């Protein structure tokens, strides 16, 4: 009787363990809070889409002006161009499940003008050659689709207007469309 009870108890623990492992491993790909997948990019037309707690569940710093740009198999690598503000800024490439794949901040680039191509490693060279682009900064990623998240510090009124001004001048387009 005890042996039978122990067997059922062991079976319960085995099922619990497998369920636990499965739930942890499947959460990133099946999370209902996927980073920015609910955002409408249809009207973006070469611009970044602003994100805050009204249109994303992502845990973003409210002291920043945050904006995203989508890249996938259809767009290929994207090219981010414009002039960054004098305040702190950073760029992060993220997978669909919100994991950060690569980052770049003000300290990594000289000057405020930015011309950055972001995409899967294998497609970057092809895009650069076919578009006839010379040397420009690249962000090589291990995935074909995801998001580019731009953070511009906007903690004070002056910072906010500088961030807004820079945001309006930034473009994020498929690199092969030019």
């Amino acid at each position, binding site marked *: 009787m005890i042996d039978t009870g122990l067997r059922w108890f062991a079976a319960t623990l085995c099922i619990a363990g497998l369920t636990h492992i499965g739930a942890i491993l499947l959460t990133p790909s099946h999370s209902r809070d*996927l980073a920015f997948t609910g955002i409408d990019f249809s009207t973006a037309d070469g611009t970044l889409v602003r994100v805050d707690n009204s249109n994303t569940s992502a845990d973003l710093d409210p002291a920043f002006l945050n904006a995203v740009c989508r890249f996938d198999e259809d767009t290929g690598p994207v090219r981010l161009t414009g002039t960054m503000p004098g305040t702190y800024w950073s760029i992060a490439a993220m997978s669909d499940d919100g994991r950060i794949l690569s980052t770049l901040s003000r300290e990594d680039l000289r000057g405020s003008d930015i011309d950055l191509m972001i995409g899967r490693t294998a497609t970057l060279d092809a895009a650069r050659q076919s578009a006839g682009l010379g040397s420009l900064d690249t962000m090589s990623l291990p995935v074909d689709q995801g998001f580019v998240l731009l953070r511009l510090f906007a903690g004070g009124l002056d*910072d906010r207007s500088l961030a807004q001004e820079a945001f309006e001048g930034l473009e994020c387009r498929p690199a092969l469309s030019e």
Partner: protein
Amino acid sequence: MFATLRLILVTLGGVLLGLGSAWWAVGNVHLDGAQTIGQWSVLEDNAKANPYEAARAARRGGGGLGPSEGIELITEVSADNKPLQAACAYLVSGPMPQGVLWTLTVSDRDGHLPSNPARRFGFTSLDAMAFGAARQVRISLGREVRPGDFVATTGLSSLRLTLRLYSPTLAARAPGRDQLPSVTSLGCDQGAAS
């Protein structure tokens, strides 16, 4: 008949236990050896090799900081290790890392921001008052307005403080306990919290 019923109960119990433990594990940053500095826990959204961190990042919806951006610290407990409660007032006081852009954000455990007319969700290194040679901060938060730097926690059902330090140097070498502020209780609404 009895064996079938027992099989169903065991399977159901196992699944519920597995899901419950997974939910608890993802919500508990201390479980899988996450780095802690005093009462602050370091969030590592870029720890791809750790499935718990990946699940945690997905549940938070992403948006964490990468290695060349800085580090993100959270606390949901006070200095005496009691859970922070939305019905209570707290004082965030002490030093902040010098020469670094930092932001302190008040939210609930799901990341929802407080609803206050001033849209004041926290403070930054550029707008917080700093005292003394060590430039210590004194930021109070609660439902009743207090003098000095203050964040209203109106509309929150739980409380979480997120301290983001925008510095690649600090991302590589986290600040020490003596470089971070502590969170102490200033009291609670009568009857709202024990």
